[in-house]
């Protein structure tokens, strides 16, 4: 397969993965629009660094990793540039929206959003995206033991959040 063909094939594979990248991004950032911005940044970076992708690696894991790194950069940038890039967010309170939902029932999504980043990413990659522990650890660039302990803590926290208040589960 020529380089030209493979680049085009990879682009189409990336297009096919966009729905999953969007889903993963929604676990990272608050609003769907920002999540799509993250996906766009990640995809642009992936194309710039296509030569770094080895075809024996999973394309989805590689893209998740780029997306995660783009998000980390974003979080860092927000910290140092909060006033410059995110003035609208000042004073915004995420608590309100999730409180409303809690009146009925805490949705899985809202419960996930309450987890610390580390746990949320582990849960999202393994349980939502269905990655194997090994691949999820690779995306997060941590040893597999770290991944499993984050996953276990995240699950425990989620189970507590999702448990109906009256002990009895129907």
């Amino acid at each position, binding site marked *: 397969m020529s*380089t*030209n*063909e493979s*680049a*085009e094939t990879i*682009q*189409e594979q*990336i*297009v096919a993965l*966009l*729905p999953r990248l*969007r*889903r993963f991004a*929604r*676990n990272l950032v608050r*609003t*769907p*629009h*920002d999540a*799509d*911005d*993250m*996906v*766009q*940044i990640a*995809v*642009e*970076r992936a*194309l*710039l660094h*296509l*030569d770094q992708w080895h075809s024996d690696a999973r394309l989805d894991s590689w893209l998740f990793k780029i997306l995660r790194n783009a998000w980390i*950069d974003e979080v860092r*940038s927000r910290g*140092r*540039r909060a*006033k*410059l*890039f995110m*003035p*609208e967010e000042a004073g915004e309170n995420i608590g309100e*929206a999730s409180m409303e939902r809690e009146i009925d029932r805490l949705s*899985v*999504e809202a419960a*996930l959003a309450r987890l610390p980043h580390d746990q949320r990413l582990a*849960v999202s990659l393994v*349980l*939502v995206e*269905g990655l*194997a*522990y090994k691949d999820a650890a690779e995306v997060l660039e941590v040893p597999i033991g770290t991944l*499993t*302990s984050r*996953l*276990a803590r995240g*699950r*425990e926290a*989620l*189970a507590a959040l*999702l448990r109906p208040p009256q002990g009895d589960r129907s």
Partner: protein
Amino acid sequence: MSVSDETLMAYADGEVDAATRAIIEAAMRDDPEIRRRIEEHRALRETLQGAFSAVLDEPVPQRLIDAARGHDAARAGNVVDMASARRAAVDAPGRRRSWQPVAMAASVLVGVAVGYLGWHGSNSWVKTNSSGELIAGVGLAEALSNQLSEDRSPGLVAITGLSFRAKTGDFCRTFSVTGAHASSGLACHEADGWKIKVLAQTPAAPNSSNFRPAASGIAPAVRAVVEESIDGEPLDQAGEIAARKQGWAATPSR
């Protein structure tokens, strides 16, 4: 017998080897508590599989599809080749090469800029110089040269966002323009003035109260270029004042 919860979790996720599986399955037969804990892990796994699944059925925004395909310009295929072609096209002989990502983004956005010139005519705050490069028009150039990033007084031509020193040594600043053709971009001060490196239209946000434009109108494409080209940290106000004092003249790369 006691089996750690992490092991039970790994069993529920199909992540244990055959030997461990045999041990756990034996334990399950004897111990209803272990069965219950595994069931809990499986139930949670199933619940989470459905999380955010609605997003999978949503139509993918065209901008993301375009981005994945290298913005249509990638019809010819090889992205790496395209990048070098762009670099060759954008970099005048002898220019430093650190602008590769910028070159890429700039060419992507040329269409936008051309549209811009169309809307605004020659009075635009963006214009082309004799070499066909996009440069800041008078009003924008003045804002870029003089305005500090904290300045949000009404009636400004442009709001200057982030100022930083690029890997080329040039000082660069993001800017955003509001109004009917709201846009954001990145300009860098080169020997002959402020060159527009990237220009992107700000996506129009619906007027819903819980929906806001991303990142104060700085387009993702612009932010991506900033991230790729920034050298170190952005300038703080003192840094901006110092850079302004020296006329935003490039400082040698570290």
